[in-house]
């Protein structure tokens, strides 16, 4: 049983790390999205290992099923050949970024090592059935009904906000016949500000 556990752990870890590396390293955005999918599947495996089967299922359904597909949609809309703009930053700021990252990574590592060295805190075992669909559902609809409602409200207003921002950017598609090219202006203005290196960025 131990060997099986370790096997699943090793497999998920490899998936997560390999997928993460692939997401960052590959030049083609579609490859990145697929690598992200692999990484997400690995995380689902870790949840399974922790006996959180509900979370594992949700991870696959929502993230692998919906979110990554959405990413792919956006990439396809922009055109799979869409290249990220050339990095306009100077070598100094890149090295500075790398140095900051290394410094903070070492800091975090030191903190983690220090925390593991002293007295370890063993977490209490959870009652049987913790994290199953029944338990989550019962929690959601009894004691946590308020957060559930608020997340519903949050999603509603996010939709209202998205429509308020998106509407008026292009001619109403219900009035005019939308050409396939018509989608491009919608995405382009969103992207444009991030690409344009402004003189202000030096100040901020």
């Amino acid at each position, binding site marked *: 049983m131990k060997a099986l556990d370790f096997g699943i752990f090793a497999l998920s870890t490899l998936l997560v790390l390999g997928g993460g590396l692939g997401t960052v390293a590959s030049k083609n955005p579609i490859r990145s999205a697929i690598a992200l999918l692999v990484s997400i599947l690995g995380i689902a495996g870790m949840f399974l290992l922790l006996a959180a089967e509900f979370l594992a299922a949700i991870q696959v359904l929502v993230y692998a099923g919906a979110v990554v597909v959405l990413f792919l949609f956006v990439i396809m809309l922009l055109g799979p050949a869409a290249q990220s703009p050339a990095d306009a930053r100077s070598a100094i700021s890149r090295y500075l970024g790398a140095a900051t990252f290394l410094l903070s990574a070492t800091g975090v590592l030191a903190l983690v090592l220090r925390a593991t060295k*002293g007295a370890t805190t063993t*977490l209490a075992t959870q009652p049987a059935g913790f994290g199953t669909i029944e338990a989550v559902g019962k929690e959601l609809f009894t004691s946590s009904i*308020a957060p559930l409602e608020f997340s519903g409200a949050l999603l509603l207003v996010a939709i*209202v*906000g998205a429509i308020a921002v998106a509407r008026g950017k292009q001619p109403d598609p219900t009035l005019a016949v939308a050409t396939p090219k018509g989608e491009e202006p919608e995405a382009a*203005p969103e992207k444009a500000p991030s690409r344009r290196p402004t003189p202000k960025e030096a*100040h901020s």
Partner: protein
Amino acid sequence: MTQPLDNLRSLAYFGPELALSGAILLVILWDLVVKQARVAGALAIAFAALAVSAGLSVQAIVSGAGSRGLFNGLIAFDGYTSLFRILIAFVTAMVLVFSKPSLEEKSAREPGEFITLLLVLTLGMNLMAASRNLLMIYLSLEMVSVISFVLAGFKLDDAKSSEAALKYVVFGGVASGIMLYGMSFLFGVSQSLNLSDIAAKTAELTAQQGKVPGAVFVGVVCMMAGFGYKISAAPFHMWTPDVYEGAPTAVTAFLSVGPKAAGFAVMMRFFSEALGAVHDARIAGTVVDAAPWAILIGCLAMATMTIGNLSALGQDNVKRMLAYSSIAHAGYMLLGFSGMSKVGVASIAFYVITYCFMNLGAFLVVMAVAEQNGGDETVGAFRGLGRRAPVLAIVMAVFLFSLTGLPPMAGFVGKFYLFSALLETGGTWSWTVAVVGVLNSVISLFYYARVLRVMFLEDAVATEPTTVRPMFQVTSLALAVPTLVLGVYWSPVYDFVVRSLATVR
């Protein structure tokens, strides 16, 4: 001690939020159905809901309604929440007044949506001030963030506005990601999302190990990313200048006060309820107990003040300058909290009140001046304002003096309470932080005085008096009067603040 109420019985104490939620739905419906007086009607609904929210909260404080945990202890009903509710309702109402003229124009974009989103923001900020559970803290913070992104990008034809929104989204995503990571540490240690359970577990482990456990420390530091982002404290302040400059000025005024106040509310509640770090002042030994947090907050305060003030010096755009000034003010408020005392909490609540008058006022004047000069928001647009629009110029002078913290303005009294709350705890550390704070106040005089000099001592190209909307004059005067009055006669307001905070735990 507070007793938790079940879901149904909680609704009786949930009036302000229910009123706001009802108003949000009503405004959406009104905007869809009614053709005549669309904006006026929607504004009336919004003002009514805000009045109900503030009125119920005043009543709760005055009648001493005590403290309750709503929805099984997820949300607090106490004087602290009520105080911030009143403040937030006031800020929203002021911003609605600011944006009324532009909403009523024919070319106005989606006025109904704008009002709806502003009301949702108010609801989210109310919940931020009331959350006593990590899940609720996260949800309410997200509610405020998501709507702020939309409002920052509300000027679609303006590239700067879109840039502001995008930067805000990227920074917001990173900050809330880091905060969630921190929350996972706290949940791992205490196995509960309730702040009081976390406090109990942390106290137990601290007593066992003789120091705050490393996991809790890392968790709190990560959570500071989320809080720091909301109050625009360094090093999470990067978004502030761009967003404040790019967003419509009414939205900027709102973002500089509302979410900042709510951010402080949720941060102070987190430290006091989840870490038990906030004590009555002048108890020997407590400062040592709270040491890591006092030093953490003190460092953040010093960095925030210094970065804000030094960057503001070179700014030519007044909105951008006020953005850096608002970062500096977040630093002053953190300074009041770094003493980790209940007096500090009261002093911050009082400072937020004074800050809301003076900062809203300053942005209103910028809005009026920019409107006269075809959208020019640079210092040059203020040239000769003392001659061309004396009322606006004098009112602006009041706000800027108050922001500097000169007597007899409200800002001075607010700052006085912040510094005295810090020094009451005593010790070398407090004095160090306080000295840095005083030096920063001196620096801030330079950039505020620059606007004053341009307004009164430099001649404009055109000398004829400008016509300013009467609404701008009346509203800016209405904000200047409390700024002056609170500078000489502040005790009723301060007493009200202290009284409302007395019911907390």
